Each structure stands twice: as C-alpha cells, then as structure tokens.
C-alpha cells in the first residue's frame, strides 16, 4: 500500500487539535472536539468538513451524455447543466462498483465525484467502459473539497461568496469566486441538513478553508471529522460504500431503487436489475434500533427469535440525535418489515432490536 496522502489542509487539522487517522489511503481528521459535540453542532448550527480525499474525474467529448448514461443507472441525459445527480455505477450483475455524484458542467462535460477508497478502481472502470473518443481526466489530487453543513450553512456561504444562494436549490451548483479563488459550489451533502460543498484547486484550498472556517466558527460552528460525518449520514440511512453497499449488493436491495431508471436505454447491470425487480429482492437493507443495551457494529450477526441467521450488520453506532443505538443491515424478507423484532449478536449475546422506518431521523424542512 502506498504511503497515506495528506490533504492540502492537513496542517490546519493538526493545529485545530484534530485526531488524525488513515482512511482510504488519506490522513484525515476523525474528530476534533468530539463526535457528539460535532454531530449536534451540525444538526443545530453548522460544521465545516475537509473532504479532499474524495475523487474527481472529468468526462468530456462528443457523445458523453449517452456514453455516461450506459455507465450509470440514474439518468444523466436528463440532467440539466448546473445540476448534480446521485447514482450508483453497477456491474453487469447489478452489484455496485461505486455510488457517485455526476455534475453536468456543460452539454458534453461532466464531473464525477467518487469515493476515496474507489478512485483507482473507478478510473479503470470508467476508462474501460467509455468509448475511446471521450476524454477522462482524474483530477482527484488537484482538487480539494470543503463542505459546510447545517441549518446555518447558507449564512456562511452567502457571506463567503459574491453570489446570492437563496435561489440555489438542492443538488444545483454554480461556479463562483471566494476571495478571488475560483470555486464550484453545490447545495449537496451527506448529513441530511442543508449544506454546501465547495470544490477548489488543491493549491488554493487553504484560502477557501480559512474563509469558511472563520465564518463558521464566528457563528458557533465547529470543524467536523469523519467520525461525526459517519453518525450524521447513518441517521439519514445514507449508504456508506464498503459498509452498506459494494459489488455484492444491488441498488434495489440497498433501498436506493429510485436511482435506477428502468425506463431509459440500456446501462450496465440493467438486465440483472430488471430480473431482480420482477422476481422481487430476497433481502433488504433495513434500519433497526436496539431495545437491549449495546451498540451494533459492522459484521455483527443478526438472528431471528428462533436464532436462525437472517442477516448481518453493515453499519451501526450510537445516534447522538436520537440518543439510541441504531444500525443498518441486510435482512432476509420479511424480517425487514417495520416493527419486526430481531436479535443482534453483540459479544456472543443475542440482544433485542426492532426494525424501524428510515431515515431514523425525520428532519423538519430538511432535504
């Protein structure tokens, strides 16, 4: 394994007291003040995140929309310029290569945002499955990403940019400048709160971070590490690649069937997914809340009341907003029905949990 990469903001995290850990080949802050404090501050106010580990590819050329549409399950051809889209990239068997964002910059120019752990795999996949005439550029290391998330994030971004953001809707983006630094700003995120993601040339990431950090902390916001990023996304049942979804799970099983557009043309995985849709899935990613004490963690077994194996935990944590222990796992049907009592094997002791509706957290006025 290659040496872990420091993002352009590494020194800032260290001086802010960030606890640095290796994640997907990068050295990232897992927490600063503490996961619970950071989590709650994002839900109530605002938090600033360094997400520079994420990968960015540019795809352009004649026929790019149609070609990309064969690569992903959501509909890229319908995407308007200035809008972004969440979509899985599937294998021929319907498994998930990655879940990505596609930004349409121009008619035939797109930016793909991929998970850090998948940058190399995705690049090979994209290059291998797009026609030769298209240009694919990996700009992951030249691109930094800073997110501001939380109900007060619009205040922060409005102050930082020359533009009015009140008209920028969820999953729309603009190109703007922040203190003379060119940036791409989208109203996107992974927390369930209102929020923005700011893409900037890695060489100028520090300037953007400093502006946003000062404004965020000025209103009582805090820097947020990967720990709270995980608890925030888990409360919303947003899938984490490598935990909740991978090449062995399909979008239909994961409950993100809305990202699979069966009414568009052919795309990789379509045949299998159509069959799975017609036959019905045999297991589903379900959310559960622990009734007994103990926190569900990844890979813990799940059994039914008769102690027969019915699934496995893919993600689990204490939920700082709900103050309960919550988890996700693939459950054989019909154990995924809301209200079903299941047992999670925590340290060789079966403990009662109950399947609940997701997202776990119902946000008022959220996305």
């Amino acid at each position, binding site marked *: 394994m290659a040496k872990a990469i420091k993002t352009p903001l590494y020194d800032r995290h260290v001086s802010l007291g960030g606890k640095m850990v290796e994640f997907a080949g990068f050295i990232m802050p897992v927490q600063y003040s*503490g996961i619970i404090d950071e989590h709650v501050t994002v839900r109530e106010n605002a938090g600033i995140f360094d997400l520079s580990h994420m990968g960015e590819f540019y795809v352009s050329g004649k026929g790019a929309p149609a070609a990309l549409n064969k690569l992903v399950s959501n509909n890229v051809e319908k995407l308007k310029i200035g809008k972004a889209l969440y979509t899985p990239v599937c294998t021929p068997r319907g498994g998930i290569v990655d879940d990505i964002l596609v930004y349409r910059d121009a008619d035939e120019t797109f930016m793909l945002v991929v998970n850090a752990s998948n940058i190399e795999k995705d690049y090979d996949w994209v290059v291998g499955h797009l026609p030769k005439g298209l240009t694919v550029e990996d700009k992951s290391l030249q691109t930094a990403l800073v997110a501001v998330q939380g109900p007060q994030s619009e205040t922060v971004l409005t102050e930082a940019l020359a533009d009015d953001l009140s008209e920028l809707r969820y999953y729309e983006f603009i190109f703007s400048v922040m203190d003379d630094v060119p940036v791409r700003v989208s109203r996107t995120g992974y927390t369930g709160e209102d929020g923005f993601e700011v893409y900037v040339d890695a060489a100028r990431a520090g300037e953007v971070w400093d502006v946003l950090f000062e404004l965020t902390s000025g209103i009582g916001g805090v820097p947020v590490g990967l720990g709270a990023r995980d608890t925030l996304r888990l409360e919303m049942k947003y899938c984490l690649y490598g935990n909740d979804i991978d090449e062995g799970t399909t979008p239909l099983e994961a409950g993100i069937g809305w990202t699979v557009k069966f009414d568009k043309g052919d795309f990789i995985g379509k045949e299998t997914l159509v069959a799975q849709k017609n036959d019905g899935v045999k297991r589903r990613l379900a959310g559960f809340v622990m009734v007994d004490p103990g926190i569900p963690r990844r890979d813990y077994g799940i059994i039914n009341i008769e102690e027969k194996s019915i699934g496995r935990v893919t993600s689990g944590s*204490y939920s700082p907003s709900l103050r309960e222990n919550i988890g996700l796992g693939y459950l054989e049907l019909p154990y995924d029905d809301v209200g079903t009592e299941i047992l999670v094997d925590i340290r060789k002791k079966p403990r009662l949990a109950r399947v609940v509706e997701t997202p776990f957290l119902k946000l008022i006025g959220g996305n």
Partner: protein
Amino acid sequence: MNPEDLSYTETHEWAKVDGNVVTIGLTDHAQSELGDIVYLELPEVGADVEAGGEFGVVESVKAASELYAPVSGKVVKVNGAATQEPALVNRDCYGEGWLVKIELKDPSEVENLKTAAEYKEFIGGQ
C-alpha cells in the same frame, strides 16, 4: 497527568489500592483514544474477576473495547453513576468516572502492575 498513587495495566486500566479494596477505572489515555463514551457494561456486585480477565466493556461512539481486571477478587461495588452517564469517564476518569471496586484476593498481584512512570513510558511519554 496519570496520578502517582495509582497502578496501571498495559490494557489501560488503573487500580487504586485502599486496604483490601481496589478501585478500578480507565486511564486518561484510554478515554481520550476512545472518544465520547456512551455505554458501559460492568459486572454485578458479587461477581468474581480474575487478573487479566475481561470484566466488562466500554463503548464509545466509534468503538467497543474490553475492560481487563488489574487484579483478582470479588466485585463489591459498581459505579452506577457512570453506567447511567458514561460521559463521566471522559470527564473525570480518575475520580467520579471510576468503574468498579474489587475486594482484593491476592495483594501480591498489585506488584505486577505498572507505576505511573512506567505506564507513561508504555504509552509513549504522554
């Protein structure tokens, strides 16, 4: 940082000997590494624990970690305030955030534990 009058384990528990009763807790290094502690699973009063044996579990938001007994003996008291409010361990791991009290079976076991200076060196001089 780590009180001089306590003894320490390589698994990051501390022990305070007071006559034949030993109070056990988690070190500052451990609570800091774990982060926000949200759940404690501790033995019942009357349970027997063995030196080096698992006697409970501490869970933070991000990880679960076993607790190992510094010495053998019978549990005579469990800190109910800490099981009710596990964040006490983060806030005051050497005071209000203690975990259990054990009636010491073999006082010579205490000699196997590390001094504050030895523990400090063990965790890399912090």
